[in-house]
């Protein structure tokens, strides 16, 4: 090609090509219709909701005077719940650390290992932790241990999947840079894999910890100990003052964890 070809190749007219269709109005209309159909199908009555507000107000007002007289016991129970969540998260982290590299397509040493690791993670994720807690309580007896195990198994599936997906996004060049030195599978994971996703991995782990603290409070209901069990008891005894205090302790803990993890993430830069 030479300069003259370029000049003569100028298009004869300068109007834009036809505008592509904008599907937005169709999507909005479809969503609104679907929402209306759901309301209609479930027989949701806004009238009942309006009348209910007054009743709800009355019910919530019973929680108006939190009773902190037994605070030291609540804090101890919260400690047990926290420990349950912490051990569950530690277990999940350990399992995910070993399974995630196998479940990442770019690191997996062979397709069989990749498939097996993926399926194990899927299975763990598919088992609800409430169900697992029931099973472990039946097998190991009451207490925080079955709770920690249930949380660990369920969230190992999540953490492993999150880690594997982050590992798959590691720049191919970085992987090749380490692989080209003759490094083997564990070395590639330790030098190209984990350092590259450290920040994301920490974020995911803190999220799982936060989620496990909330879930550990609920697991008390099925006999896995901690503050959940106490809340369950006071609610059944209609002891609103103590219930309110317990709820506030849980809320404060979650807030503290949230601020702590934000601080930690900021530190890691």
């Amino acid at each position, binding site marked *: *090609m030479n300069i003259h070809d370029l000049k003569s190749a100028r298009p004869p007219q300068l109007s834009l090509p036809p505008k592509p269709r904008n599907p937005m109005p169709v999507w909005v209309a479809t969503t609104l219709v679907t929402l209306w159909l759901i309301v209609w199908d479930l027989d949701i009555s806004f009238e009942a909701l309006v009348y209910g507000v007054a009743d709800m107000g009355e019910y919530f007002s019973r929680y108006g005077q939190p009773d902190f007289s037994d605070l030291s016991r609540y804090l101890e129970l919260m400690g047990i719940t926290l420990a349950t969540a912490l051990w569950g998260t530690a277990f999940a982290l350990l399992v995910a650390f070993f399974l995630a590299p196998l479940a990442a397509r770019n690191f997996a040493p062979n397709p069989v290992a990749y498939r097996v690791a993926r399926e194990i993670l899927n299975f763990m994720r598919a088992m609800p932790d409430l169900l697992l807690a029931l099973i472990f309580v039946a097998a190991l007896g009451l207490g925080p241990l079955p709770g920690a195990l249930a949380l660990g198994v369920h969230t190992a599936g999540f953490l492993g999947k999150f880690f594997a997906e982050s590992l798959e996004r590691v720049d191919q060049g970085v992987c090749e*840079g380490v692989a080209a030195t003759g490094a083997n599978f*564990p070395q590639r994971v330790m*030098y190209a894999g984990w350092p590259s996703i450290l920040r994301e991995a920490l974020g995911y782990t803190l999220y799982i910890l936060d989620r496990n603290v909330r879930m550990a409070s609920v697991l008390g209901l099925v006999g896995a100990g901690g503050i959940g069990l106490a809340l369950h008891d006071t609610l059944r005894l209609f002891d609103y003052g103590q219930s309110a205090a317990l709820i506030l302790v849980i809320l404060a803990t979650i807030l503290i964890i949230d601020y702590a993890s934000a601080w930690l993430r900021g530190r890691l830069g």
Partner: protein
Amino acid sequence: MSAISIQSVSKRFPNGCEALMGINAEIQPGSFTVVLGPSGAGKSTLLRVLNGLEASTDGSVRIGGETLGKGNLRKLRASVAMVFQQFNLVDRLSVVTNVLTGRLAHRSWVGSLFYLFRTEDMEVARQALARVGLTDKAWSRADKLSGGQQQRVGIARALAQRPKVILADEPVASLDPVASEEIMALLREIRDRDGITVVVNLHQVDLARRFADRIIGMNGGRVVFDGTPAELSPQALRTIYQREGMEHDNSLDLALAYA
């Protein structure tokens, strides 16, 4: 015996692209070879085949008399270091850890799992960093360095492998002219002092002329020129850079006028 022996190597990608079509070449120990050619000529693919990052579809590669295969891939990689256009360092690791990556192939995975290195490996890394003049940056994070410095870390990592061959895939394509000059001089000095065989892919004809002992010209997946820089005539350059189906290429004439 040649350091690298390339015997009728072909590479066809799954999408049907024929990157290499029957390449033959013998690369002598301690030589400085530049592979020259337009984008898409297959230069990068050739270098990647030599390190085993791509498997050839046909033909064989022998490194120091040993045929490259699945079984000895990691062992041969340890002696064939690679330097990349995009440096390919691990950003979050320190400079010295990046250099120590070059020692991984010589060590079992147990120690490296905990980032533990022997004192002799630390000494190898220290020497490599001193060679590229980055001793003071040893504990900086790799991504805090400039492009030229990062490439020097890439070369230090290659040196830490104590390799027989260094393959450099367009090592200066992302760098400014001054940094490019430094990197090429460094590679040349490594060849001269350590007797390490160096193979470099380049875009720049003038750099190839000044630094190479031998130039291999590639176009369309074939070797179209093989000789000394002195033999690289304007006619040879035309053969290397000509584009398919273009008899009178003004851009080619203009580009080569200043080469």
